[in-house]
């Protein structure tokens, strides 16, 4: 009987230390999320300036650019999946990967060949366990992506998009990431990044409204040449930032729930331990009493 009590005590102790770990991770996530969110806001002016400039060029000149034109020479399609480096974030990575799988299934049904790119160890582990080749992956900074990493990601993907067919060129680029709506809602989303569609934020051109006539230095083609890759880079950066903020929010929530569950477990085990102790005492008393009765007998 004493053994049972000891088992309960041990469980309580281990659950208590787990609870401390969960609590610590919740607090870490909570303290990082503020920074992640302010990074999302800090990157907004750059993205806005770029969008405005791109739409200015797009409305002022009829220049076609390789990045905006559909490629018909290849059926390869790049898919970038943004997940976290670590687990402990509830269904965060799982739902991004599920969304990616849905997309891959759809694209495969259209007869396309998938080239997988991944950020975050979870996606790498998921796909390599299933024996699916990943063309390129980036790990190590999923919750606070740097500009440099985003640039590297964007450069690799842009290179793939502009590469000739026999060097693994791709015709489209899709990005699966988790959009940060607010602290409780993060939605996995799929966007088609390349070829660039109608530029976002282009206000419908009002015929009566006189548009400022831009001069382009050195020329409209060259301005577009330099703008569009930047635009793609900034979009990819903002996707990664959103994914990072979502990861932290998901982790905070998951760890909060885990802490509460640990508390519940501790309560249950404490009750069981008390019950075990009480029944042991009861049994001892009845043993003593019956022993005394036997001795006191006639």
């Amino acid at each position, binding site marked *: 009987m004493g053994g049972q009590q000891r088992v309960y005590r041990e469980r309580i102790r281990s659950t208590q230390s787990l609870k401390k770990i969960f609590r610590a991770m919740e607090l870490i996530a909570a303290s990082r999320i503020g920074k992640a969110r302010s990074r999302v806001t800090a990157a907004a002016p*750059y993205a806005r*300036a770029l969008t405005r*400039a791109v739409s200015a060029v797009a409305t002022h000149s009829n220049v076609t650019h390789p990045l905006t034109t559909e490629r018909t020479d290849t059926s390869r399609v790049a898919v970038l999946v943004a997940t976290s480096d670590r687990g402990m974030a509830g269904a965060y990575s799982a739902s991004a990967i599920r969304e990616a799988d849905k997309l891959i299934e759809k694209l495969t049904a259209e007869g396309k060949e998938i080239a997988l790119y991944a950020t975050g160890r979870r996606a790498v582990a998921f796909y390599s366990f299933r024996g699916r080749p990943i063309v390129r992956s980036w790990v190590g900074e999923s919750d606070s992506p740097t500009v440099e990493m985003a640039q590297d990601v964007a450069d690799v993907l842009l290179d793939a998009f502009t590469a000739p067919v026999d060097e693994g060129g791709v015709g489209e680029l899709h990005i699966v990431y988790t959009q940060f709506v607010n602290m409780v809602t993060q939605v996995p989303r799929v966007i088609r990044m390349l070829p660039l569609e109608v530029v976002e934020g282009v206000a419908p051109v009002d015929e009566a409204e006189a548009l400022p006539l831009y001069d382009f*230095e050195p020329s409209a083609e060259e301005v577009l040449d330099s703008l569009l890759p930047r635009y793609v880079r900034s979009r990819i*950066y903002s996707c990664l930032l959103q994914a990072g903020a979502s990861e932290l929010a998901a982790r905070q929530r998951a760890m909060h729930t885990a802490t509460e569950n640990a508390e519940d477990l501790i309560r249950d085990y404490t009750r069981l331990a008390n019950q075990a102790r009480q029944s042991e005492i009861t049994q001892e008393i009845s043993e003593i009493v019956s022993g005394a009765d036997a001795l006191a007998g006639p």
Partner: protein
Amino acid sequence: MAQLDVDLVAADRKIWSGAATMVVAPAADGEMGILPGHSPVLAVLRAGEVRITPVSGEPLRGTIDSGFLSVDADRVTIVAASVALISGTPTR
């Protein structure tokens, strides 16, 4: 006197914004000076030094890697992947 409304923006944050009397930026084919009343322009910038003369306070100098500059009705936006200030104080 008319003045320019300037934004200096790096990829991950806004570096400086405010009113200025003159902006000099390294355009792809030579330095380019912007004064109030400049015609709208979109210029590609190469790596080099940007100088902003604010309406008040000390002049701002910074090096950028490549980027671009847009001028539209006295609104100047300088965008670069990274900006390193040599002198002057960034606005928060």
